[in-house]
Every structure is written in C-alpha cells, then in structure tokens.
C-alpha cells in the first residue's frame, strides 16, 4: 500500500505492507534511527514519536495508520540547526546517562510543555510515567524538562 507521511516537515512516500510497524518504517525505510526499539510490547515507551503532535508508541501503530498525517521524531527537534530548548536542557542538566530512553523523554517533555508551559514536579513525573529509564536517571530527566519549560517561557516572553 502506498502511503505518504510527513516526517519532521518533509513528505515521504513509500510502498509498505499493512503490517509494517511505524517504528520500522521510521528506522528502516526512512533511516531515522534516533527512534529506538526497546520492549516491542507497548511497555517501555522508548519508541515514542509525536503523531500530529501527540505522543504515541510507534511499536503499537502500523505505518499505514500514519498515512496523510505528521510525525515528529527526535531528529525533528532541532530548530534552524540549533538544539531546541529541550535538547539544550537535557545536555545542561545531565538528563541522560546511556541515552537509550532520551529521544522519547525529550519528545514527551516537549509535548508536555506545549500543553502545560509550567509543569510541576508531579506533572512531569505523571507525563513520563509511560517511559522507562533503566539507568533510573529520573531526577535529572524531571529537572531537564522543567528547565526546558522555563527556557521556553523566557523565550516566549523575550
């Protein structure tokens, strides 16, 4: 089946089998390997991408379902060649250790900030509760997301 999916602002057309998972379409067809595969059972959240701005687990969506829709992956976070506030914050606040869960954490964080510009500690923990960090680096992930929210607020008022 022929599908056209807008990924990080660019339309991609490809012929895919209906059973092709979105995560494999992103990684193997589009060669965007920043989206990771962890548990493959809808549990760990490392394959999270934004589908029309909403976080979804791309191991539990078929690529054909994204036909005509927009996807944002970690590769799409960069703005005008610069790190986005969420990327900058993860770097500054040591929001990653091994880095495996990081793309998903940053996407979930950016979707949260979009919805709630000033999330509390609880808000952040609640929002990332579908994403596992097996380094258990949650303290700094929470700190990073809140720092990114603060930077985004300052950017908006500047």
């Amino acid at each position: 089946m022929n599908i056209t999916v807008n990924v990080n602002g660019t339309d991609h057309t490809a012929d895919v089998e209906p059973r092709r998972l979105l995560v494999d379409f992103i990684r193997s067809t589009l060669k965007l390997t920043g989206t990771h595969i962890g548990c493959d059972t809808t549990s760990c959240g490392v394959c999270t991408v934004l589908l029309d701005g909403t976080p979804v687990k791309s191991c539990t969506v078929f690529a054909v379902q994204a036909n005509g829709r927009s996807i944002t992956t970690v590769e799409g976070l960069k703005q005008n060649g610069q790190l986005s506030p969420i990327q900058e914050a993860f770097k500054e606040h040591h929001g990653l250790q091994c880095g495996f869960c990081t793309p998903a954490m940053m996407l979930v964080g950016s979707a949260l900030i979009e919805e709630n510009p000033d999330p509390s500690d609880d808000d952040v923990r609640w929002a990332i509760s579908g994403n596992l960090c097996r380094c258990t680096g949650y303290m700094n992930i929470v700190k990073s997301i809140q720092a990114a929210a603060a930077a985004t607020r300052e950017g908006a008022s500047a």
Partner: protein
Amino acid sequence: MYPAKFDYLAPESLEETLSILAERGDEVKILAGGQSLIPMMKLRFARPSTLLDINRLPGLDKIESSNGHVTVGALVRHNDVVRSDVISSENALMASAAPWVADPIVRNLGTVCGSVAHHDPEGDWASVMLALGAEVVATSKEGTEHFHPGADGERITGGSRVIPIDRFLVDMFTTSLHPSEIITEIRVPRYERGGGNYQKLERKIGDYATVGVAAHLELDDQDKISKAGLALTSVASSNLKVTEAEQMLVGESPGEELFAEAAKVARDACEPASDVRGSAEYKRHVVEVYTRRALAEASQIAQGGES
C-alpha cells in the same frame, strides 16, 4: 515481532464501514486505538485477515451530554475522558478511573469503547460501565431486521441495538457484539445527586490492575441511597458486578458500617487467582479495603463534598 499478514481497509464513512462489516464481518477486526489489539496481533494470539481502521470516520470522537445520557463515541481516547469537562462535571466514577487506565502514552490512542469491546477481565472500563449501568450502542447495516426486538432486555433504536452492559459482556474476551456490528457509542445514564470512585492497585503505571474497584452511588432527597453500582476488576474470569452488595446498599443511609458490610460481600463474591501480582487471599483483602474506600469516596461526592 510481526503480525500475520492482513488486508487493511480505512473507510471514511460509517456507511462504508457497515457495508464492509455486513459483507465480511466474520474475518474483520475493527482497529480503533489498537493498544490491546496490535500487541495481540504481534503475539499472533489474534490473526484477523482484515483490519478495519475506523480512525478516519467522522463524528465518533465526541463526549456529549444529552437526553438523559452522557455518550462516549467509538473514537474517544482514554485521555479525552481525562480532559473532558463533560465528564469532570457529570460523571465522578469515569473521571476518577480515566487517569489510571494504562499509561499516559497508551491513553493517547486507546479508546473507551475499544476497551469494553475487547473485554479483558483486567480492563478497567468494563467494571466502570457495569457500576454505572451503561448501555452499548451496536450499529449494523441490517439494523433492526437482523435481530429480535426487545429480546433479553435489548432495545432497538434505528439501525442500532442498545445493549445493557451486563448483557454485552458475555465472558472473558467475549461479548454479544455480532460480527456485522460496530460499537458506535456507549451511553451512561446521567444523575442528579450522585458520586463515584475507582480504586486501583497496580504494581507500576501501565500494569494491569492487581485489583480494581468501581463504585457509584446516587442519593434521593431524603439522603437515602437510590441507586448503587459496584464492580470489580482483575479478580474473576470476567469483570464482576457485585449485585448482592448493590442491593443491600439501596434504600439505606450511607455510612461506614453499611459500606463495611458491602465490602465483605464484595470480598466473598470475588474469585481471584494467585499469580505474580499477589495471592488470592491478599487480593480478597484488597477488594474489601478498596470497596470500603470507593464507596466512602462516592458517598462523599454524592453529598456534595467534592474531593
């Protein structure tokens, strides 16, 4: 992990959807949120030869309050319930259960109607709907002709069957939905003075309930309980409506002793299995404690003490 091959159809109208179901409903699985179905297909527990994606159908994503009901359309996601003003002002039990379904990312896709249609006894929504006395609206192309009007408490409206939830849920992973039918919405009765609460024990966010308790109470103008709903998750082969406890609550004044008695009935009614989430005895104990808490919370909300 990859599912077995299937044909993929993504109709853009309900009419087209009903035609496909009428023609080949037997081989079709309906894909709404897919958050239970796709994992089952990947494990090849489910091998539908055709997947019917209803996500492009218009108008099914609404939560509305009208004609004595709150209606939840087939494409209403769990997180739509979390964010709904209609739900937060009109249905305390649904509002309290929604944030505990799966995890926040799964809640963005998974649907209320899909969860009820899936009827996993560890699913939260079926218990909530049992406690609320909800009705499932099943629509098909044949409409009324295909079925016997009025049979088994079913009502016929237009091309749809309106099925009481306790008749819809047959057994684990089994419902009375016909292959030619699709759930277009679930209707929950509105109430004047009522409250509800969902208590869920889970090992971690995203895990199935170790124990879940859904309670709903309505009060008359003498502050007596006029309607009671109580249903349990994960402690029987199906979501369990505790009719005996419901009956003993109706007509009484809400109070700690009454709720403790009802909780004992719930404890005795459930049939949990010992597994990785705990022993049967432990789960029974949690059922009792959580039933007491859920009823107390429901009663407080019903009496106007928002929590």
